[in-house]
């Protein structure tokens, strides 16, 4: 491993994490393909590095979100019971499902999410403001956040919690199976099921990702799948990128975040389908 490679890994991780942090998702889904396709890093090392980068991203970008009250920590810990339970199931299932099936499933989930995001162009939380007088849950999860673009506090209710918990379980399961942060699944789940403002979804998802990832990262670490010369520069680049991304999220409008999210979802879906069918294609040629 020479100095140039370390710098390259650092730069690539920085870019991926800046984009990821801006969308409230970790860079795992970018890091694994970039490392394996362009960096010729072996897939297990790439996944190991990606998991560390996912944790680094989430932890490094959490503080500004927390301080600006975008993150709903009570909702996060409640939903984490579902994401970690999903991750536990994923660890148990790992190895029984062929990788090409997983890529295909992931591609489908991404497309469905993109479609949902496009269909609801209005911020879901704004529609529920009128009904704020009624408390729906015994968990006291309803809250408010200061919106810079609107220049006032926006109150929101947490709706359809059981459905949200169910979707979070699936997000945790997929996260453990594919070795990614699954923020890309958590944000649409919060958007469509819980009907949170998109910035609250992004911040809370970002906060939850590290805990979901920690459930599988420990196993990788113990098994020795985390290779220091790869994971080190990647983790460091991720922290810097995630902080930059978080700054950007708070200064741009909800509509732009949503549009950017849809574009990235579709691009990733295409990439996943290529991975799902490409494998069989190459096998046919070989």
């Amino acid at each position, binding site marked *: 491993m020479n*100095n140039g490679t*370390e710098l390259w890994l650092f730069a690539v991780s920085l870019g991926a994490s800046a984009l990821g942090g801006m969308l409230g998702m970790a860079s795992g889904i970018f890091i694994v393909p970039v490392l394996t396709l362009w960096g010729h890093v072996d897939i297990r090392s790439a996944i190991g590095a990606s998991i560390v980068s996912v*944790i680094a991203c989430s932890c490094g970008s959490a*503080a500004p979100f927390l301080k600006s009250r975008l993150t709903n920590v009570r909702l996060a*810990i409640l939903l984490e019971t579902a994401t970690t*339970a999903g991750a536990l199931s994923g*660890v148990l299932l790992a190895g029984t499902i062929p990788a090409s099936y997983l890529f295909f499933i992931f591609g489908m989930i991404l497309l469905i999410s993109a479609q949902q995001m496009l269909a609801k162009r209005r911020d879901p939380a704004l529609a529920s403001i009128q009904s704020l007088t009624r408390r729906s849950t015994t968990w006291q999860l309803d809250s408010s956040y200061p919106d810079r673009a609107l220049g006032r506090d926006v109150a929101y209710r947490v709706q359809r919690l059981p459905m949200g918990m169910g979707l979070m379980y699936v997000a945790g399961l997929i996260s453990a199976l594919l070795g990614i942060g699954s923020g890309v699944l958590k944000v649409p789940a919060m958007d469509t099921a819980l009907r949170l403002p998109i910035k609250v979804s992004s911040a809370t998802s970002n906060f939850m990702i590290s805990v979901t990832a920690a459930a599988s990262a420990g196993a990788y670490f113990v098994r020795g799948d985390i290779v220091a010369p790869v994971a080190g520069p990647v983790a460091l680049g991720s922290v810097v990128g995630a902080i930059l991304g978080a700054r950007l999220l708070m200064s741009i409008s909800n509509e732009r975040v949503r549009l950017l999210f849809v574009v990235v979802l579709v691009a990733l879906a295409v990439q996943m389908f290529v991975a799902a069918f490409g494998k069989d294609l190459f096998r046919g040629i070989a």
Partner: protein
Amino acid sequence: MKPIRIESLLAGGLNVGTWLASSVIAAGLVLSLFYQQTPFPSGAQVVTTGIGLFVLLPIVRVILMLIFFAKERDYKFTAAAAVVLLTIFASFAIGILAK
């Protein structure tokens, strides 16, 4: 007087943890860049330690939340934090056993 907000507690904890882990990784990388004949501890070992710190950080975060909710006598959320912690440990154990 306002009681300490959980948001500031967690923001502080995660910031310190991120800086600590990142500094250890950076120190390890610098070591491995400038010493081909690596002294003890080697750069790679230092980097691995930093990575280990990153893996532990989310677990420490859940423990902080557990303590905070317990002090607030907010038992529903204390229980939620405990469930998350136990699930992570269970997952670790399965990973180690499957080695």
